[in-house]
């Protein structure tokens, strides 16, 4: 589904990704772990198409299409979802209006009929309930005045409504208390653990991986993947730390 080959990327002339390769098949859940500054968030932004992140070498294809040649909104319409570490507040635009426009824009690109107001609200209610989000919050402006945990749950409600093929979730577990972590983890499993979908979890900690158990765990250090293993690698990282693993590799 996603093939990244020898990806190099810079921000403002500083190279952050230095030859990263990764292959994700449908039905798989991958986790990328690594110390601060390793390039984890940069990888998410580059795949999402954030302006200012320049790819200098290598390639990334999504279902055979050149992902890097597509505009950010076209990547979304193709089935890529990027969950933000710090979801952005959008004053004055309600969650419901925002998501309905987003869902219908994507449906339009795929040649599907737009959802009516009623159809959309029904789906929104269902996903909000899954993530234990109050429907009243769905009517409020996007992320404005939301707590850290509410913002992260809202990301997952959005993911549920948009129903992507591949979700790249950047530290979706940070800033969550134990109960919210469980809710979000269960949400990811319910929405994304399917044979035709895949997930790339970017995280610092192993605790989310106890709920969303990955098929593969990768260690990212200094802009490239230095080690790949199964879920046990995450446990080992938690005990030994990144440095030991990165050095041994």
């Amino acid at each position, binding site marked *: 589904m996603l093939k990244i080959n020898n990806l190099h990327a810079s921000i403002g002339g500083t190279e952050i990704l230095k030859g990263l390769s990764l292959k994700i098949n449908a039905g798989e859940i991958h986790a990328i772990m690594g110390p601060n500054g390793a390039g984890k968030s940069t990888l998410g932004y580059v795949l*999402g198409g954030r*302006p200012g992140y320049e790819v200098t070498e290598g390639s990334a294809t999504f279902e055979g299409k050149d992902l890097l040649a597509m505009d950010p*909104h076209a990547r979304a319409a193709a089935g890529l979802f990027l969950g*933000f570490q710090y979801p*952005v507040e959008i*004053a004055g635009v309600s969650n419901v209006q*925002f998501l309905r*426009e987003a*869902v219908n824009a994507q449906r339009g690109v795929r040649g599907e009929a737009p959802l009516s107001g009623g159809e959309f609200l029904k789906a929104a209610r269902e996903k909000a309930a899954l993530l234990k989000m109050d429907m009243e919050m769905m009517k409020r402006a996007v992320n404005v005045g939301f707590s850290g945990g509410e913002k992260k749950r809202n990301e997952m409600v959005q993911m549920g409504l948009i129903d992507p093929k591949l979700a790249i979730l950047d530290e979706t577990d940070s800033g969550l208390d134990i109960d919210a972590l469980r809710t979000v983890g269960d949400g990811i499993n319910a929405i994304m653990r399917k044979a035709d979908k895949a997930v790339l979890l970017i995280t610092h900690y192993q605790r989310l991986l106890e709920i969303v158990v990955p098929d593969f765990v990768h260690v990212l250090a200094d802009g490239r993947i230095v080690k790949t293993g199964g879920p046990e690698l995450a446990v080992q990282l938690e005990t030994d730390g990144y440095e030991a693993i990165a050095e041994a590799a």
Partner: protein
Amino acid sequence: MNAITLPTRRDESWRYADLNAVARVWQDLGPAQTLHVPEGSHERLRVGNLPDSGILRYDVTVEANARFDLHCLLEGRDYGRIEIAVKLGDGAHFELGGAILAKDNQVLEIVTDVEHVEPNGSSNQTVRSVLAGTSTGSFLGKIGVARHAQKTDAAQSVKSMLLHRGATANAVPQLEIFADDVKCAHGATVGELDAQALFYMATRGLPPEVARRLMLQAFIADAFVSIDDDGTREAMEAKAQVALGELS
């Protein structure tokens, strides 16, 4: 015929005006319209279209415990100006919600002169401008509080969004306060669309033009939020939406 001398750049309230456009219509411009809001009543004025001259001027007296609302949308004119002088009685309120949507070389402006001449009055002015091309959007807002007009509560919020590098926003608050127990808040910002928010919206599948439209609609909506009739507010928002669509 207008008896007053043609204004020049030296007149503070005309310093950002398109004086050539003003000169063309000045001879035939009538005096400011006088409005009187009787004690305890609530009058509303909504301006969606400017007259041929492009200039509207009001001189409003709001009596004790009365309220006057002006909501206006300036757009689609080479030169447009709404000028309002308000005198507020004891406990009276003035509400202004103004939107300026300008493109090309358009020069659009709102000029207010609010005089709190009696105690306990309040005024709230909200102006939102979206400026494209090499247009100019200006708000000049004078608030005067007389010596005995204690407990006055006056607020101004002026925000401008520049869509292109060549656009100009002017925000000139002018406060003359002679009483000592008053609240006068004013804030002015000039900015561009938030690039982070645009990227966030793009990752949810919104094309740039849709993302921009949603953000600008929300921005402009601040100017109309105090319209107390849903139908009127929606009509103003719809008109603004059409004008916004023509900006970029």
